[in-house]
C-alpha cells in the first residue's frame, strides 16, 4: 500500500482515488473518530457530488472507528448503487456486526 496523506496532529490518514468508471476507492488508515472525520467526509462528499456511483472503502489499515465513522460509511452506502467495505479488521468487523450493519456495509461474516 502506498503511503497515505497524513494531516499533522491527526491519527487518521486517507486517500480518495477516482477511476474512470464512476468508481471511487477510499483508503483509510489509523484511528477514525469524530475529531478527524470532517476532512474525509468533505472529500468523499465532493466525489459523490461529481456523480460517483460505486464506492470501495478500504479499511484494512483502520485500527479504530467510532460510531460516527460507521455512520459515515452507512451514509455513503445509502448514496451509491454499489458499496463495499474492503478488508475490515476483525475488531471493526465485530463492531459492525454488533450494530447489525454487516449486510448494509457489505461485510461478509
Amino acid at each position, binding site marked *: 500500500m502506498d503511503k497515505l496523506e497524513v494531516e499533522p496532529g491527526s491519527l487518521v490518514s486517507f486517500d480518495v482515488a477516482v477511476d474512470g468508471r464512476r468508481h471511487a476507492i477510499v483508503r483509510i488508515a489509523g*484511528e477514525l*473518530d*469524530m475529531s478527524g472525520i470532517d476532512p474525509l467526509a468533505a472529500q468523499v462528499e465532493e466525489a459523490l457530488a461529481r456523480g460517483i456511483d460505486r464506492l470501495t472503502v478500504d479499511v484494512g489499515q483502520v*485500527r*479504530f472507528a*467510532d*460510531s*460516527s465513522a*460507521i*455512520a*459515515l460509511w*452507512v*451514509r455513503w452506502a*445509502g*448514496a451509491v448503487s454499489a458499496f463495499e467495505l474492503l478488508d475490515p479488521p*476483525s*475488531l471493526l468487523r*465485530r*463492531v459492525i*456486526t*454488533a*450494530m*447489525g*450493519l454487516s449486510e*448494509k456495509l457489505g461485510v461478509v461474516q
Partner: protein
Amino acid sequence: MSSVQSVDRSPGPAAEEVAAGAEGVAPERRSRAALWLPVATLIIGLALTVTLSLVSQSQYTNSEKRLLALRVRDASLLVTAALPSVQTSLASVAELADATNGNLSRVDQFASALVGAPASGKQFVSLSLWKSADPAAGPVAVLGQTPRLASAPARAAALFASAMHRNTVGVTSFLTSQPPGLGYAYSAPRVPGGYVAYAETALPANRRSKLQTSNAFANLDYAIYFGASQRPQDLLVTNLSHFPAPSPSHAETVPFGDGALTLLMSSRVSLAGSLPHDLPWLIGIIGVLLSVAAALLTWRLTERRRSAEELAGRLEVTASENRRLYGEQRSIAQTLQHAMLPDVLPEIPGMLASARYEAGEQGVDIGGDWYDVIDLDGRRLLLVVGDVSGRGLKAASTMASLRYAIRAYAAESDPPDRILTKLSHLFSISDTGQLATVLCAQLDIAAREITVTSAGHLPPLLLSNGSGRYVEVEAGLPIGVEAGSTYTATTIAAPMAATFLAYTDGLVELRGESLDQGLERLRAAAAGDHSELPDLLGRLVTELPHGPSEDDIAIVGVRWTS
C-alpha cells in the same frame, strides 16, 4: 446552539468585575506612565545640552584669552622692536660726538639724514647733543625742532642719569602738549664728560594710528600706554574710539628703554576661528533638537508599550472570559443532558430500577447517549438505552426526539419491536448524517419475562446467582439507516433475583481491543459483584477501564427484589 450562546454571552458578575478592573485602573496609570519618562528624557537631555554648551563656551573663552595673550606678545615685540634702531642711531651720534670731541659739523653731516619735519617720514623731529655732566646748560647742538626737554632741565638731568645708569635708552614722554611726542636719550657708556644724544619723535596728534594694517594688529583693537598703567594721560596711540576696550581684552607691560609700554588689546573677531565661536550655540541647538526628538521617541515607545500591555491585558481578560465561558458552557451541556434524562425512575413493587450517566471529557459538547425506564401499567416496565452517533446539540436533539417518541409509542401499548420500527421512520441518515442504536426491553415483573429488541445496540447483560450472560438478541439496523426496518423480539425468562443491565458502548469499548474483550470484562466485573444495584452501577462506571473516557457512558439496570 443559539439558546446556549445567548445565555453564555451575557457576562456574569465575575466577568464584569474583571472588565471594570482593567478599564478603571488603566487610564490613570496610563497618563502617568506615558508622561514621566519622556519628560525625564527631555530634562536630562536639556541639562546635558546646557552643560556641554557651557563647557564648550568656557573652553572657547579660555582659548580666546590664550590666543589674545599670544597676539599681545607678538604685538609688543613689534612695538618694542623700534627701540633698537633708535638706540643704534643715538649711540652712533653720541659716539661720533665723543670721538670728534664735539665736532658738530661731522655730527651734523651724519645726523641730518635722521631728522626731518613730522610728515617727512624721518626717524626724529628733533636731535640734539648735550654734555652729560651739565644737562642744565641745555643742548650744545640742535638739529630740527628745538627739543622740548630744553625747557625742563630737571627732567633732563633725571633722564640722562637714568639712561647712563641703566646703560640703555632713556625714554620720556610729552603727552600733554601738542603735538604729543616721545623723547629718547642715550650716551655711550663709561665716557665721563661725554655727550648725550637726545632725540624726539612726534606721535599722531589725535593718537589714532593706522597700525592695524600690520599683521600683528590685524583684527585687533589696541591701545598703547607709556608706562605700566593704563591712565588716559599716558595713552600713546590707539585705534579705539571708545574706552574701555571691548571684552575680552588683554594687557601686557613690556620694558621700553629705561621705562615701559603697556599694550591693551581686544579682539574684534574670534581668534580661534568661527567654529569654536559658534560651537556652544551649535551644541545648544542640536542638543535641544536631540532632546526633544529623544523625548518624542520615548513618548512614542512608551505609548506603544502601553498599548501592547493594554492589549495583553485585554487578551488576558478575554482568555479568562473564555475559560469561564467554556466552564459555563460545559456545565450548561451537562445540565441539558441531565434535563433530558429521567429525574426519578418508576417504582414498582418487586423490582428496583437504577441508572448512571457519566459524561465523557470531550469539551463542551453534549453527548447523544440516553436511557429511560417507563412504567407501562404498574406491572410492566419498558427499559430503553440508546446512543445517537456524533455529539453536540444536534445529537442531543435527535436523542430527545427519540426518547419522547418511544414514550409516546409505549403509551400506545406498542411492543418493543413495533416501537423500533416506528422509530425507524423518524429520521434518515441521508438527511441528518446520524444514526442511533437503541435497545428496547419490556420487563414483566410478575411473569419474570423479558422481551428484548435491538436496533444495532450492544446486547443486555443478565445477572443471576453470581453468574452473568449476554442475552442473545438479533441486532437489527440502527435507527436512521432504513425507514420501516423490522426487528426481532427475543423473549427470555428471568431467573430468581435476576438483574438486567443495558448500557452504551462507552462502558465496554477500548481502542485497539476487541469488543468481545470489553464485553467479557463487563460480564466478569458485574457477575462477581453482589452489592446493591446503585452501588454496582456506580462501580462499573467508575472502575471499568474505558480509555481516555472520551465517550459518554449510560447504564441502566433493573433487579427483581422478590
